[in-house]
């Protein structure tokens, strides 16, 4: 076979000639990230070890170590290099004879590019580690053991790589030496792998017959397999070409702000450009919301530059004084961009999750969503399906366990600008963090944002009271404070709200006098109007509770029947009737609004406790003394709300 390939594969003869486009691609992407998937049994350590050793990417003392150290079971005589020992790892792994964690190795490619190989474990229980390695990878090397054929893990590796956005896959059908280097054996497997890969959106799939043990088709062309005309593993790695900044499909400008740099008369926003380029004079929009502002300066390492492209750590200053802070995202304005290239902030997203937590996903539990420098509370509102990583199909699922991949809907506390993951890994990927352990429980990949108008219909509200409450980290309830005027209801309500607010809980006080100046200003003080007053306040409290708030009602509400009707609107335990019981002499003495004085003078004929009777609760959920210390009453109420204080 005569090969006409132009790529040079020998590293000793000096740097190969590169085209201008290759030079530019090399300057913009000097490092290529590779994920190696497969298990020890597939010969992955041997393949990587050989790649490292034969490209002279390993120091001599490490080579010596691989000559002189053996794991049990090794058949390679001492004195020869056991390539698998070059990627030898943690003691914990030795004990179990497996790879637990991702290891990173440097490989120097003849193209002048450096490869960082993330050596990922192959077993099913380490799918999450493989997802980590794949999350930054440009290329995947996927091993298939020719003696065992295509196994479920082959499909799993393809699924995870495709999901995480790896577009180039090099499939090494290994151990061809053990099947006599037979063409037919290779073709059968290669066909299977190709059809498995066809299910995914991959740009390039090379299937290469290899023997990592004997070195065939790893670095140099094999003489054992004259029937094979494709590239070797090293050639396939070397010929990879990235998209450059001139690519029209590339992500527009994105800068997640990490840090605000301040100096004398200087305020700049520091971050790494993760998409597009930025130049002084460019228009940018903060968080893809509102009008644009203009970039004044672009600095790299404190020095002004004319242009910075993706991958550069910059500081930018803006012409207009804008309140930009860590967690904000500067983006190119929407003009002339496809709709999915402008991340309008949203509070709901469809996303894929790779579950990494020890504990399974809790529907409705509040997690922290991290993206860029951003941390916002978020709830998984729906689990649409769980991916069968072998068949690639989506199955029904009620939860996600460690290493599961699921399709979910997520609601965030505040609107956040996220891209679809297919547009940008950096601004379309996020983490979910458990709020107590602070562990990373999932990696999320945005499919698209969900627009409320499209998504929410009257018969299927996705976000219910529970979801809202969980997001707020509290149990919503109504505390109904009843008592005669001057009993101290408003004072207690105010002190309680201040306390709850200080604890980070979300509250609202519905005060009798307050509602009478607005919502109920058409109502008087007749028994009928009082009943309507109570009804409206109760309905309002119910809406607020549904919104997730702890509602404190401070209302005389003198009649038992009205209060009973109010309580009837709520589930058992959600409505606490609290009697603020204050002796009448104390009340009259206090008379903060001068009402009792007026009533005695005859100008308030329907004044409760004077002209109309007050019907004390027969079975209140709680009685607090309005004549005692306000703090005591507040503490009693906090206990009733079961909040720690």
């Amino acid at each position, binding site marked *: 076979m005569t090969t006409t390939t132009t790529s040079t594969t020998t590293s000793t003869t000096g740097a190969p000639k590169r085209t201008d486009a290759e030079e530019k691609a090399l300057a913009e992407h000097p490092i290529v990230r590779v994920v190696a998937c497969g298990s020890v049994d597939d010969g992955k350590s041997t393949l990587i070890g050989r790649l490292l050793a034969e490209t002279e990417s390993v120091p001599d003392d490490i080579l010596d170590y691989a000559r002189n150290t053996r794991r049990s079971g090794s058949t390679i005589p001492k004195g020869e290099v056991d390539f698998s020992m070059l990627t030898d790892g943690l003691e914990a792994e030795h004990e179990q004879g497996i790879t637990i964690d991702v290891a*990173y190795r*440097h490989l120097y490619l003849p193209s002048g590019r*450096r490869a960082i190989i993330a050596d990922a474990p192959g077993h099913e229980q380490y799918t999450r580690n493989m997802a980590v390695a794949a999350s930054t990878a440009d290329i995947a090397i996927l091993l298939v053991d020719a003696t065992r054929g295509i196994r479920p893990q082959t499909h799993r590796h393809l699924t995870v790589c495709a999901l995480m956005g790896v577009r180039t896959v090099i499939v090494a059908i290994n151990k061809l030496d053990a099947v006599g280097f037979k063409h037919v054996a290779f073709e059968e497997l290669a066909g299977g792998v190709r059809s498995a890969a066809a299910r995914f959106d991959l740009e390039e799939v090379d299937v290469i017959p290899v023997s990592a043990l004997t070195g065939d088709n790893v670095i140099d062309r094999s003489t054992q397999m004259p029937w094979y005309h494709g590239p070797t593993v090293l050639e396939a790695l070397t010929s990879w070409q990235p998209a450059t900044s001139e690519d029209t499909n590339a992500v527009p400008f994105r800068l997640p702000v990490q*840090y605000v740099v301040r*100096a004398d008369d200087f305020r700049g926003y520091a971050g790494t450009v993760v998409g597009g380029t930025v130049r002084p004079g460019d228009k940018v929009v903060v968080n893809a919301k509102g009008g644009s502002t203009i970039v004044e300066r672009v600095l790299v390492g*404190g020095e002004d530059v004319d242009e910075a492209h993706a991958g550069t750590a910059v500081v930018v200053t803006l012409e207009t004084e804008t309140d930009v802070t860590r967690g904000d995202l500067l983006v190119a304005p929407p003009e002339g961009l496809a709709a999915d290239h402008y991340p309008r902030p949203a509070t709901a997203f469809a996303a894929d999750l790779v579950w990494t937590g020890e504990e399974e996903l809790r529907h409705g539990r509040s997690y922290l969503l991290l993206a860029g*420098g951003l941390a916002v509370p978020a709830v998984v509102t729906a689990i649409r399906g769980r991916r069968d990583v072998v068949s690639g199909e989506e199955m029904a699922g009620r939860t996600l366990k460690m290493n599961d991949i699921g399709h979910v809907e997520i609601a965030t506390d505040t609107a956040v600008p996220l891209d679809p993951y297919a547009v940008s890994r950096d601004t379309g990927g996020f983490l979910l*963090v458990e709020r107590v352990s*602070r562990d*990373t429980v999932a990696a999320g990949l945005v499919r698209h944002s969900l627009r409320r108008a499209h998504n929410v219909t009257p018969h299927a509200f996705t976000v219910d009271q529970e979801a809202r409450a969980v997001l707020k980290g509290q149990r919503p309830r109504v505390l109904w404070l009843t008592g005669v005027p001057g009993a101290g209801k408003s004072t207690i309500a105010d002190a309680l709200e201040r306390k709850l607010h200080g604890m980070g809980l979300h509250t609202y006080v519905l005060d009798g006098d307050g509602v009478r100046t607005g919502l109920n200003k058409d109502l008087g003080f007749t028994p009928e109007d009082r009943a309507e007053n109570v009804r409206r306040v109760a309905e309002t409290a119910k809406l607020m509770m549904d919104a997730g708030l702890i509602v404190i009602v401070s209302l005389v509400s003198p009649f038992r029947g009205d209060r009973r009707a109010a309580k009837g609107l709520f589930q058992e335990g959600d409505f606490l009737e609290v009697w603020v019981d204050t002796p009448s002499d104390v009340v009259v003495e206090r008379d903060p609004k001068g009402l009792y004085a007026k009533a005695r003078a005859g100008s308030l004929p329907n004044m409760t406790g004077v002209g109309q009777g007050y019907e004390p609760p027969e079975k209140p959920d709680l009685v607090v003394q309005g004549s005692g210390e306000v703090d005591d009453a507040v503490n009693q109420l906090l206990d009733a709300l079961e909040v720690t204080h």
Partner: protein
Amino acid sequence: MSTAAETAIAPDAVLDALEAEAIHVFREAAGAFRRPVMLYSIGKDSSVLLHLAVKAFAPGKVPFPMLHIDTTWKFREMIEFRDRMAREKGVELLVHTNQEGVAEGVTPFTHGTHEYTRIMKTVALREALDEGGYDAAFGGARRDEERSRAKERVFSLREPGHRWEPRKQRPEFWRTANTQLADGQTMRVFPMSNWTELDVWRYIQRENIEVVPLYFSQERPVVERDGQLIMVDDDRYPLEDGEQPKHRSVRFRTLGCYPLTAAVASRAENLDDLLAEMLVDRRSERSGRLIDGEGGGSMESKKTEGYF
């Protein structure tokens, strides 16, 4: 690590990429943590780390102090260099020594290297981090240094007591770090994780970064111990009867406590010489560190105790 293939790469673009990644990590930690500190060991990696920190926050100031754990056995030239660098770069310098260890007379000769390292480095570091209440500490460690380091995270979680638990490390997706800490947890942060030894030297050359002169060859008084050349930096070094240190042209590939850091015979008197020499000498740099040589996983076990 110096390897033949490494010389064929396009170094500037790679250095730019590595620099950008390191700056990203610095900024992320400075933005996320309440009270970060930068470990400063005075070696070449620390010189680069300091340089990167200055670049990351320019034109502002480096927003955290740097901390040196002084075992009292460092080369004298290192201490002079340390104090001068802190002054010149305008970064606050904190120095901590385990005074209990000094009072008990802990030395590499009396307590053995393992125990000495534990008391004067690991325990001292834990003390200093606890006393300062730091929730994050930057270090210059690189994945190419040693086997267990190849699996180290960029944001490496430490449990209460600064313990490193390999199994509890958080998955690192994309550029997004989980910098959230539960009670008692802290973070070690390694901006130079993906650098190699040669990258470090090339960057030093390109950016004109000053390093301790011990890295360059010069006549120094040395004795030989177990095939390793040890420089006798002061009169505390226990010589054998009648033994006289010999003057030889040597330099150091890594710098630590002088009785525990082997020199290499070398004529590399400047950076150009040194880079040329590295392309020939293909041993990894830690081959000169006596404290690593105690069984295959000794770095791993030191790390579990809280060593950097």
